[in-house]
């Protein structure tokens, strides 16, 4: 897995959590690569470790109780796990950005949209001027105000703030995410926004510096379905225009199918299948992926029963022996209870961790 078309290379990443009731391995020996400009969907259910993966890459895990037990994450050749906080902070927002599930609670409630966007733009001291910010209109647009990001933002008296004007760069950034009334929105506080607009503001904030990598952790799960469709379309459009890679974390298979170039399926802290999107949905090789796709409701009531997966998601404090999916797997055989399968290549750009698929 070498070559300059790989933006991110995760090798053997293991993350553990210390809880009151024992130690949990949230990520177990994960290896994964992300190419430049691709959208990789990371799909899995609760507890599979997908959020932990996102937070590990941008290094925002709560260090106690979490700890990185092993592994490296190479970003453009540098192991970012070894960087100190200062260097990592310099990467965040400029090279690696992250957006989260609930956009309303991801914004500071006491500052306006415009103030927070201004903060995102001003943070970049020592910015690489050759890389122009992502705005729609001309590159001569005056970008970034003179003040430092740490400048205190005073509270505005209620009623006084409506007329405040914002820099052109902020207005353009909001327009680029299809917000039709950027002047008004820039003056609003987060609690005055709807979910769809708030998420677009987050996207604008995350992409304004043209990061090479955007990590999106369930960005549409809290949105209504019609709004979700718009936001997915927007993310794809921005990816096309900016060229960022996107790690799209979701529990929803259908959403993954809509946006992904490649899909990584996770189960119980492990990566169980990795393949191109078209390939995965047509020919899922791991029993879990297959069962997940089959259990997606798409029939009418009179067209027979859904193939549900029996059992429950395992408790990570005491995972099953051998293959973690074996208690729920309809193809399980002896080897599955004893040994742990590893990810192996089974075709062009398709990897599975399953003894069924391993060539003998």
């Amino acid at each position: 897995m070498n070559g300059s078309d790989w933006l991110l290379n995760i090798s053997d990443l293991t993350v553990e959590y210390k809880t009151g009731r024992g130690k949990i391995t949230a990520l177990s020996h994960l290896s994964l690569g992300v190419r430049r400009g691709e959208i990789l969907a990371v799909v899995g259910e609760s507890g599979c470790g997908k959020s932990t993966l996102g937070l590990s890459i941008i290094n925002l895990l709560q260090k106690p109780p979490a700890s990185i037990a092993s592994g490296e994450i190479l970003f453009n050749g540098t192991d970012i796990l070894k960087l100190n906080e200062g260097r990592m902070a310099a990467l965040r927002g400029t090279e690696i950005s992250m957006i989260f599930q609930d956009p309303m609670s991801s914004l500071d409630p006491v500052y306006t949209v415009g103030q927070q966007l201004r903060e995102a733009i001003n943070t970049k001291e020592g910015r690489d001027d050759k890389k122009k910010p992502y705005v729609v209109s001309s590159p001569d647009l005056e970008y970034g105000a003179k003040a430092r990001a740490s400048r205190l933002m005073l509270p505005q008296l209620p009623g006084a703030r409506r007329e405040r004007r914002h820099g052109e760069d902020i207005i353009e950034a909001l327009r680029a995410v299809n917000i039709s009334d950027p002047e008004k929105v820039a003056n609003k506080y987060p609690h005055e926004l709807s979910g769809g607009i708030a998420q677009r503001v987050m996207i604008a904030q995350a992409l304004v510096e043209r990061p090479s990598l955007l990590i999106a952790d369930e960005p549409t799960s809290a949105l209504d379905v019609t709004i979700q469709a718009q936001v997915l379309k927007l993310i794809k459009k921005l990816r096309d225009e900016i060229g960022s890679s996107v790690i799209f974390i979701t529990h929803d298979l259908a959403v993954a199918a809509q946006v992904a170039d490649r899909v990584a399926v996770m189960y119980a802290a492990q990566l169980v299948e990795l393949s191109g999107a078209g390939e995965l949905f047509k020919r899922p090789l791991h029993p879990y992926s297959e069962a997940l796709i089959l259990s997606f409701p798409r029939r009418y009531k009179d067209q027979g029963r859904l193939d549900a997966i029996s059992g429950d998601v395992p408790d990570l404090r005491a995972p099953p022996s051998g293959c973690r999916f074996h208690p729920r797997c309809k193809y399980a055989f002896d080897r599955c209870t004893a040994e742990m399968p590893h990810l192996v290549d089974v075709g062009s750009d398709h990897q599975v961790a399953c003894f069924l698929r391993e060539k003998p």
Partner: protein
Amino acid sequence: MGILTFIGKRLLLTIPVIIGVTFLTFAISFLFVPNVTVAWLGLRSTVAARAALAAEFHLNDPIYVQYFYYMSNLIHGNWGTIPGGGQPILYNIEIFFPATVELAIASIVITIVIGIPLGVIAARYHNTKVDHSIRFFYLAGYSSPPFLLALLGLLVFGYIFKFFPTQGELTVGLIAPKHITGMYVVDSLLTGNWIDLRDSVWHLILPATALSLTYFGVVAKMTRASMLEVLQKDFIRAAYAKGLRGSTVIFKHALRNALIPTITILGLLLGSLLGGTVVIESIFQWPGIGLFATQAVENYDFPAIVGTTLIFALAVVSGNLIADVLYAVMDPRIKV
């Protein structure tokens, strides 16, 4: 709606409160002293003198009539006089009140300066030795009776080390600064009277510190709890994800949010401090409303008692109003 309408609305709501408080105080003082005239004029007074006093002060009329006269006097600025000769109550209040204001404000400032940073540090290092020692410190302050700390401070810094003066606002012999607000520190500052300034500040430090040692725990605890809660919020993590440095996130985002409940507590605290801190004023002979009120009670001086109660009520109400306004300004989610 605008901040002025907001204040206006709140002020309207205070009127019923004021009426209620004055009536209650009036009624209590009315009910608890059976023989007002005797109390004022002494046991040796003649019947005629007492009768004259009773007529003058409408003391034989039913309570609501007396209350009516009282309220109409109040509104006209006539808060009564100390019976048996003496100055009008309002005049007395004007003399004593600024001293309490000065003490209260100084105390609040010290409380903020000590309390908030300690709260932030305790939150940052929570569940470590630093956190525990801070908590011990403020709990000790909070659970001690105010006079204990005051006396200790007085003893150590006033008598043993002779560092600070032990009584009053100004050293005997010095001429008070020109009266603008009645607060010596402010007045000396405004008139450029540096001798008086240094002296009055020196006198202020010990009582103000003694007072704030009792209360800074509330502020520190509130700040600590608030910070801990805010630091768990999603937007803090999102702020780091934006690439902001730790100090920016802590001060510009976390503290700013965490201060919202703390500031409102401070407003309320200011209100109750303004009402007169009897114990501290007694110990340091600080000529404030608390001292005045104590004397009034000892002398059965009703107009004075009701007057000081009214001041106390007004102070608490103002404190509430300030807290409400600050809260609305600081938290944009509050509809104004």
